[in-house]
Structure formats: C-alpha cells, structure tokens
C-alpha cells in the first residue's frame, strides 16, 4: 500500500513540474509549485525523513512560497495565461507529459529487464524503494541534521551569510531610482 502512495505522489510531483515548466502565468505556476512542494514533502516523509519534510513544509511552503504568492498577486495582469488559454503553453504541457510517460514506460519495461539510463533500473520496485544502505538503529535523517551542526559548522556559517547576501541583493536590486 505504501509503495502505491509513494508512486502516486511521484506522479503528481512530475505532472506539476511539467505544469509549471510549460510556463503559464506566474500565479498558476506558483499554484503548481506549491502542489509539487507539498507532494515532495510527502515523499520525503514517506522515506522516514519526518523532521526535514516538516521543515520544508513550514519554512519553504508556509514562508517563502506564501510571500512569493502575495508578490505575484500584486504584479499579476488582468487575464493571466492558463494552460488551456494559450496553444503554446498547452502544447508544451502535452509534450512534457508525453515525454515523461514514454520515459517511464521505457524504464519500467518489465520486472526482470534491467535498463540503464544513468543508473540501472530493474522494474518499478527499484525506483520506489530506494535504499542507500544500512545505518543501524539510528535514523539517517536525524544523524544528518546533527552532523550539520557539529561537523558542518562552516556550512552553516556560509549558508547564513548567503541568506544575508540574498536579502541585501534583493533590496539593492528593487530599490530603483
């Protein structure tokens, strides 16, 4: 049952990526971005990364995407482009969907046939259950987060500095005059 949940979440993930890659108006792009972000959190959660999934949900979706949505709503036009309103966007969406479908059908040809794209796939099982090895009784995700604050102090400093620079750059760029 769990593999089907991950499978369905992955399908919605890919379809919403195609949805905003076909370039509708930013409002609709932001909509499917939120959907894909939420569904991505679901996939991370289903692999046992409960802390990271909830962090992305709260901070990324609840903070940054909300701010993005509000600024896009301020800058939007009277008749924003939806996927069905413009033939170019619809065409891109359909082409993206078809290529994803063909790629998936090629890779998941059978349960015993091994297909190599960049890595070797061996049926749908190889894809949905991705195990990178055994770490014993500890949750890998919790170990990773702990390592970020112990071994990865320099990374935290660099990330904090980059975020500060991001804010300064955005304020500098939007100052105008």
């Amino acid at each position, binding site marked *: 049952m769990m593999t089907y949940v991950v499978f369905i979440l992955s399908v919605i993930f890919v379809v919403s990526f195609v949805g905003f890659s076909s370039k509708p108006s930013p409002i609709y792009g932001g909509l499917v971005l939120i959907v894909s972000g939420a569904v991505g959190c679901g996939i991370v959660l289903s692999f046992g990364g409960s802390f990271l999934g909830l962090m992305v949900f709260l901070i990324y979706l609840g903070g940054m995407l909300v701010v993005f949505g509000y600024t896009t709503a301020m800058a939007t036009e009277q008749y924003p482009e939806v996927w069905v309103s413009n033939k170019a966007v619809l065409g891109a969406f359909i082409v993206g969907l078809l290529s994803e479908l063909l790629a998936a059908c090629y890779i998941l040809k059978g349960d015993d046939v091994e297909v190599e794209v960049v890595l070797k796939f061996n049926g749908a099982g190889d894809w949905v259950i991705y195990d990178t090895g055994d770490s014993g009784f500890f949750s890998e995700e919790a170990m990773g987060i702990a390592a970020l604050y112990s071994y990865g102090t320099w*990374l935290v400093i660099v990330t904090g500095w980059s975020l500060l620079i991001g804010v300064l750059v955005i304020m500098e760029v939007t100052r105008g005059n």
Partner: protein
Amino acid sequence: MKPPILTIIMSTVISGTIMVLISSHWLTIWIGFEMNMLAIIPILMKKFNPRAMEASTKYFLTQATASMLLMLGITINLLLTGQWAVLNMPDPIASNMMTVALAMKLGLSPFHFWVPEVTQGIPLSSGMILLTWQKIAPLSILYQISPSTNPNLLMAMATMSVLMGGWGGLNQTQLRKILAYSSIAHMGWMIAVTTYNPTLMLLNLVIYIMMTLGAFMLFMLNSSTTTLSLSHMWNKFPLITSLILTIMLSLGGLPPLSGFIPKWMIIHELTKNNMIIMATFMAITALLNLYFYMRLTYATTLTLFPSMNIMKMKWQFENTKNTTLLPLLIVISTMLLPLSPMMLTLL
C-alpha cells in the same frame, strides 16, 4: 550604492570565488559559484536603466542554468562513485555535463550568446569585473577535472569559440562588445590547450586578465564606450592613445609584446601533440581578432580622425582620475616576453 553595502557585496563576490578555488568538496564549490553569481547581480545593475536590468537578467538566467547543470553533474558523479571529493571523474556523463556547465559559465561557443549582450548593457567597471574575475572560478574547476574531460568536446568548443570571437567582433564599434568577443576568443585559446598542458591555460588566463584589466582601465579614463569617443582622445590624453596601441597589439598576440607568450606556448604545445591543423587554424583565426584591434588603434592612435573643429580645441586639464595600478598593468601587458621561462615555472 552605499559604501557598507558595496563592501559587503564585493567581499561576497571575492569570497565566493575563493571558496571555489580552495574547496575539495563539490558542494562547497557549487555554493561558491552561487554566492558569486548572487552577489555580482547588483554590481551589474549599478545604473537602473532597462538595458542594465535586461543584461543582469540574462546573466542571472544563463549562470543559474549552468549552476544547475553543474549540480546535476555533481549528483551523477556522487551516484556513480559514492564520494564528494574533487578527483578525476571516470564517468563520461558526469564529466561532459560538468564541462558543458563550465563552458556556459565561461561564455564558450556555442554558449557565447550572452557575453556581448551582457557586457554591452552594463557600465565599464562592471564589465571589467565580469570579463576578468568571473573567469577565474570556472577555469580553476576545469583545471582540476582536466585529466578526465573529453578532448573532442573541448577541442570542438575551442574551435567554435575562436571562430565566433573573431567573426563576431568584426562589425562592432562599441568597445564593450569588442572586448566581449575578445574574451570569447581568448577563452577558446585557453580551452584548446587544457587537455595537453593545463599550466598553459593558467598562464594564458593570467596574461589575459592583465591585458583586459589594462584595456578597461584605459577606456574608463576617458569614459569612452564607442570607437568614436576613442578617436577624440588624441587631443585629451595623447599618452593614453599610445598605451592603447600597445595594449591592443598585445591583445592581438603580436611579438614582442606579452600577449604573444600564451599564443606561442599554446601553439608549441599543440604541435608537440601532433595537433598541427588545430594550431594552424587557431593562428589564422587570431588574425580576425587582430583586425578589429588594429581598427581600434588606427582610429585612436595612428590617425587624427575627422571631427568638428570644436573638438580639436579642447581645454587641456590635468588628469584628476585615479589611475591606481594602471602603469603596472601596462608594463606587465607589454614587457613580459623576456621573462617567459620564469613564468612557465611559476605556474
């Protein structure tokens, strides 16, 4: 821009590149590239006209795409080798992807289209930083992965770059676009020798940076961005016109100036490796570059261009502009040829 903000942003540009240079972990290399790109955007947008904003947007889009391609290459390398160290990459997919990403960052053909447009839209000082400092980080990564790159891919990109750099600059009168096409051609020369002797790539980079910095500073003295305004310089700064002659000829690679050193060494290395057709071809296409440098010197130094009489009688003011490092750069760009054995051993 207020001085504290400018200081913080410039220090982030510098520390981003330094992070790329000193990293042994691919993730910090990518972080360094992103820091560098993010912090240079307000420097490109010093003036708030639509042209500069368009140029900054184009720069941001291409560099972000290149960073994403680099991250994809890093991830594939991690998947197939299981480690993050910057060693040689045995897998061709990851290696080719990283090479293409670095080529996009450098402005090599066929990813060169952003270079003239971005350089034209930004002020001269921002263009100076764009064409010199921003080349250091991608070339250092290319130096580190050079044993595992695909020589065919690099040679193809080098051939196209010297062609595009030469032909593209032929019909230009805007100085920033001329220097952009010159940058594309020089990157082509650097990439051609990477598979055979990466030290020569660094030598070419160092000499190219000195010459381009000198050229930009000379143009900034007069705030001239077109050939026409250069042609009025004979009355204002007669000494600068002679210096423009030397720098342009050095950029064109004429002996006995310093610009000849990398070209000579690269052709020597290519012939040692039996790439005679490539060496001949690159030497011939360098003539295209030399043509438009010569046209600039012709208009600036060698002739008194026709102008209105009022332009021939200017007030002769003393120079009050800050010309830090300019004499040093000019001497390095023109007189380094006798020291070429020492430079080869230094790098």
